[in-house]
């Protein structure tokens, strides 16, 4: 049994795979595209104008984050002067420490880790299971059920907050993490994403071969699907983690300041009457750091994952 149906990078399928020596296209290498776009084409080389415009766009994207760092490293008097500071000051660690204590960020970080981790894990597991079923298993009503999954994307879960709140009170889950975790255990986008990937990357023959060997569906899933789907699962994990970490409306309603997630704790920083701007920025920086770190390390994979989930005919 071979698994070498994985799409190989060519200049066509993957624009940034321009033939350079350091590109690695070995199986298991980090630079394989998750999906193939037949005949995908980019037309022209970028001219200087394109680079200038892209530079401006990157500046706009990154400047607010840079400025958060600047503001968090000065003190309140300096940050509220004009002209505003443009270079980091000496107080970063003091401010981070103070914000950490004032906003109970330690607990919030731990909570956010638990919430985002649990949601990302369960989303990946259930999305891979369902994606495999929709991609490779034949059953009655498959297409209608898949349409239904896509249709659920149009139902904003936030609109159910009032009865959700009542449900959680009844269960005695008010102000607890399960109240945040359970409503988002699955994601339609995730199911669709895994289905798209497995349709392409998992050869029917492999599933059939497993059947002939007498393996049942769960065994096939465990031994054949999971090893093939490792890369997209990692990407889906990260994207879901980002979303769960940043989710605000429902956690803000169901949690209180004694047991917040990071975005909920951050509201506490700015709601006081005496506002220390440097501290607020230090809190904002802390709350964003874990995700920024993830972006620095896995940015390309996350970008790829978002692009793959997007391709709709």
């Amino acid at each position: 049994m071979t698994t070498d149906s994985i799409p190989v990078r060519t200049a066509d399928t993957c624009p940034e795979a321009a033939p350079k020596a350091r590109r690695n296209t070995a199986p298991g290498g980090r630079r394989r595209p998750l999906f193939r776009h037949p005949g995908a084409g980019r037309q022209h080389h970028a001219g200087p104008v394109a680079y200038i415009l892209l530079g401006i766009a990157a500046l706009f994207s990154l400047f607010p984050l840079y400025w958060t760092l600047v503001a968090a490293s000065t003190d309140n008097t300096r940050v509220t002067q004009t002209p505003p500071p443009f270079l980091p000051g000496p107080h970063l660690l003091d401010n981070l420490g103070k914000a950490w204590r004032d906003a109970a960020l330690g607990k919030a970080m731990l909570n956010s880790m638990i919430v985002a981790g649990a949601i990302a894990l369960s989303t990946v597991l259930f999305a891979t299971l369902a994606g495999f079923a929709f991609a490779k298993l034949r059953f009655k009503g498959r297409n209608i059920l898949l349409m239904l999954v896509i249709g659920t994307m149009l139902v904003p879960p936030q609109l159910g907050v009032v009865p959700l709140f009542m449900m959680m009170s009844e269960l005695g889950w008010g102000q607890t993490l399960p109240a945040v975790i359970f409503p988002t255990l699955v994601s339609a986008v995730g199911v669709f994403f895994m289905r798209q990937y497995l349709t392409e990357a998992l050869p029917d023959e492999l599933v059939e071969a497993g059947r002939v060997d007498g393996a049942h569906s769960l065994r096939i899933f465990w031994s054949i699907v999971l090893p093939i789907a490792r890369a997209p699962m990692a990407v889906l994990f990260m994207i879901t983690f980002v979303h769960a970490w940043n989710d605000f409306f429902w956690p803000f309603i169901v949690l209180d300041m004694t047991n917040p997630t990071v975005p909920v704790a951050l509201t506490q920083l700015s709601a006081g009457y005496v506002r220390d701007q440097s501290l607020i920025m230090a809190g904002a920086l802390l709350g964003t750091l874990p995700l920024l770190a993830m972006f620095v390390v896995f940015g390309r994979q996350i970008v790829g994952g978002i692009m793959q989930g997007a391709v709709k005919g």
Partner: protein
Amino acid sequence: MAISTSTPPDGPSGTMPTGTDPDPDGDLLRRRTLLHRLDVGGAPYAFIAPFFVVFAAFSLYPLIYTWWISLHRVELSTLNLMEWVGFDNYTALWNDERFWNALLNTFTIGVLSTVPQLMMALGLAHLLNYQLRGSTFFRVAALTPYATSVGAAALVFTMLFERDFGMINWMLNLVGVDNIDWENNKWAAQTAISTIVIWRWTGYNALLYLAAMQAIPRDRYEAAAIDGASRWQQFLKVTVPGIRSTIVFTIVLSTIGATQLFGEPLIFGQGPNGITGGADNQYQTLGLLLYEEGWKNYQMGRAATVAWAMFLLLIVVFVVQQVVRRVLARRT
């Protein structure tokens, strides 16, 4: 877990005839035992069940139950006491000026944030679609705001838009514009809030467009070029139609997002002003009104009514979108 219920235990069990059949083509029918049939028939449903169970329990049921609650008077302190009031909540909402104000604000902030955002995303995607050096850097940079939580992004922009020492007013002063009171002036506040939304989501949408652009077959461009289309014409006649479905998809997503705008205005208002969307409700959205009714005025029935109104609004918007699309399709 319901997953394992329909799958037989591991490995060949005693009752299962395992490939003693020398026929290499494998006459599968002969070994279809009951367990195997159960597995093949049942497993797919078991695999997709978790998704539908969670969706039904935590999305669909609450949405329907919201309707039921909206016909009652329910106080936050006594959630189990529901007093039937029929459509009173709806008439009260209809006659409530704050509702129309929030509806209008939601609409204007929605337009202010969505239209420029998707336009810029389209332009950015087009730029990213060129052969680039450092394309990964530009993509990751464009996506970085998406990794910033509403909380952090709103805090930073609230400070940039500060009236007395904010960087944006300082820059405006440099070009001779007086300080703008971003918080108290209605249009300024809505512009500032829209800016937060635009900053966070433009790059994300650009990547969706870019993915769709890369799936456009190259020969379409070649054909257009042979027909003498300029680059701009190619963009209009090949690129945009080629990603039409993705554009529709992003419009739908952005509309849903705009309808539920909550965190940005809440934090922009910094504290007590946040929930009411400014001292004069000048930037109160429907999401904020929902929260105010339920968790500040303790009227859950009314909050549910606002939620249901938001749902109706979404449906209306989609119907309008469909109609507009039909009309446009007929004209072209």
